[in-house]
């Protein structure tokens, strides 16, 4: 821990001859001090921003690879939500006769399937992202936070396509989109952040205990039915809906539904609760992840 190690300005000044030594390379002197970190450390926003191209390339890779060597290719991005809507409409809409706040049931379900898919896939992929990219974690240094973030971000493109499907279906039902549509991206981002917050914690644990990746698919199934995807949250009475908002996806889904389809059945209390939970999850996730990331390369 020499005093000069803390003196990046001095290093830059003395960097002159170094620059010459490096055969006319155009560079500034970068200084890294590597020492054991202790306690909780803040997120290095500057570093994250500097390396953002890496994040972008990881997302790009996932998108590129997703439908490689499939016969239907990107058609799957349309087919998956449509199939989900068809199944839900038949079993919950027709057979079980679920209420749908006055909307046509397929629209009602699709408006929820869009953020839910983003969340469920994001969460599943994020929690296994570090182990799936084990080779990268072991071999190269870049901010580890990019890996789960990229896993979640990849789903946004699919959500956009699904929104197109919803618009088409609304046209089919003769329903004009309301200005609320402008808020749809907000709720999409909220569900991505919910997935990221939860995913960061699970990914960090999964590095050490692979139990997580066994548990997550099952938990996501349960979570689906704990969220107002196939049923409306208006089944609950007023104050209970606010409590229901502790499930972050409850508020996000109802908010999404409201923004896409309109209606008076929305509970702002529930949405506010969910957004608060998401903020807490995200903060906790980032902090825990940050603390755990030091040993990722050693224990993965």
């Amino acid at each position: 821990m020499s005093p000069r190690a803390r003196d990046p300005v001095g290093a830059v000044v003395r960097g002159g001859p170094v620059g010459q030594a490096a055969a006319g390379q155009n560079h500034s002197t970068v200084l890294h001090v590597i020492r054991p970190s202790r306690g909780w450390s803040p997120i290095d926003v500057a570093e994250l921003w500097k390396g953002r191209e890496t994040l972008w390339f990881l997302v790009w890779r996932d998108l590129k690879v997703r439908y490689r060597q499939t016969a239907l290719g990107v058609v799957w991005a349309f087919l998956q939500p449509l199939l989900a809507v068809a199944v839900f409409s038949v079993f919950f809409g027709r057979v079980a006769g679920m209420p749908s706040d006055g909307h046509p049931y397929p629209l009602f379900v699709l408006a929820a399937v869009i953020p839910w898919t983003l969340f469920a896939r994001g969460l599943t992929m994020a929690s296994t992202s570090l182990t799936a990219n084990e080779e990268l974690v072991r071999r190269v240094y870049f901010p580890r936070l990019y890996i789960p973030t990229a896993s979640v971000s990849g789903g946004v493109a699919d959500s956009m396509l699904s929104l197109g499907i919803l618009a088409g279906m609304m046209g089919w039902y003769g329903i004009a989109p309301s200005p609320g549509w402008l808020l749809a991206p907000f709720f999409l981002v909220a569900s991505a952040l919910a997935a990221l917050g939860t995913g960061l914690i699970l990914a960090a644990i999964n590095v050490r205990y692979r139990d997580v990746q066994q548990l997550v698919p099952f938990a996501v199934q349960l979570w689906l039915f704990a969220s107002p995807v196939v049923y409306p949250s208006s089944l609950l009475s007023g104050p209970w809906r606010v409590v229901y908002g502790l499930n972050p996806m409850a508020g996000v889904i109802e908010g999404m539904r409201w923004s896409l389809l309109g209606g008076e059945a929305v509970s702002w209390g529930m949405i506010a609760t969910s957004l608060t939970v998401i903020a807490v999850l995200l903060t906790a996730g980032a902090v825990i992840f940050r603390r755990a990331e030091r040993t990722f390369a050693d224990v993965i």
Partner: protein
Amino acid sequence: MSRDPAIDVEGLGKRFEIARRRDTYPTLRDAMARALRRKLRSASPEGVDGAGPTGARETLWALRGLSFTVDHGEVVGVIGNNGAGKSTLLRILSRITEPSEGCVTVRGRVGSLLEVGAGFHPDLTGRENAYLSGVILGMSRLEVRRRFDEIVAFSGVGRFIDTPVKRYSSGMYLRLAFSVAAHLEAEVLLVDEVLAVGDAEFQRKCLGKIGEVASGGRTVLFVSHNLTAVQSLCQRALLLRDGQLVEDGEVRAVVSRYLGAGVSSSTLATWLDDSTAPGSSTARLLRVCVRPRDGAEGDPIDVRTPFVIELDYRNDSPGARLALSVSVIDEQGTTVFNAGPQGGPHPLAAGRYRETCHVPGDLMNDGLYRLQVEMRDGSERVFDPSEVLSFRLLDNDRFRDGWHGNWIGVVRPMLPWTVQKLDDAESLPQPDRSSP
């Protein structure tokens, strides 16, 4: 204080936890709270201390108390056995893993070639992977674009650049992967064992590239088992053993110290006790030694060094017609040569004798050799051929013309070689040189 070093390592240590204590959890709530606390604590180095009641953990120090500095433009080799901590050192320097104690200061942009192919995805094309891997290794997209043609040219994958890399041969894959990494514009380059892969041609190209980088004034830390490469690329070497720095100095001295430290090579054998010495009541060996002709026992011998084999013995039976011979056997078990005195044995008076076999330089290849000694008295064996010692001939990088792979051949003589021009055709090249 004229210039700060490029790499400054102070008291570096890295500890691994190799066993965890099994706790019993009284209540679920307690268990979860403890699991969480433990998880968080073990994530940070001070937690591994296991201070207090949970101190029953076993820890392994992969590195301990390492201190050294590397100046800008220096090319330093890091050698040592497997598990000596070489790779851990590079992983800490490239920030993949955190040290447990100590501090490292690196001045300059760090590029690491720890393992090639980081970030490659089999379903993506060569072009896509070059960008992906380049960016992951720390280049910007613009840098990759600017150097893309160079990368492709160096890799030699050429027209397959738009084919998914899973269709590549493993050689092509490696070449492209290395090529991307080798074009990192880093001021401090960390290189680990990338050269252990690929064919000879590829290894040669890689080493050439690293040599080019090294001579370009950049700082290189080079971990390798290829001692020839280390000796020809580096001026200085660090020798690690069991996580500690045991030698730091001029590359040749460090390499020979490393090789000398192996149990396999001991250039001196002495017998103080008749019961163990090879021989019979006729005569006994006292001492056998291999040393450079112009040096002392223990000095390094390389392929160009003339060296001697000294055989000391005691003759206990006056008039015995003793004939010693030596065989030098290489690692493959091939006898490289067998030699003995010329002109046949003469009767010897009792007493102690020294016979010396002179081996010229530029004759044998590098490698580890076993020395077998045999002694006859007339037609009778005084003792059976016995391996008395082994010695190593180091490589020498002169006259290698940039080739760093193994030099094949049982022997490696320096033979006269001439080139003559046979006609006046303009189109023929005119190499007018002859090697010594």
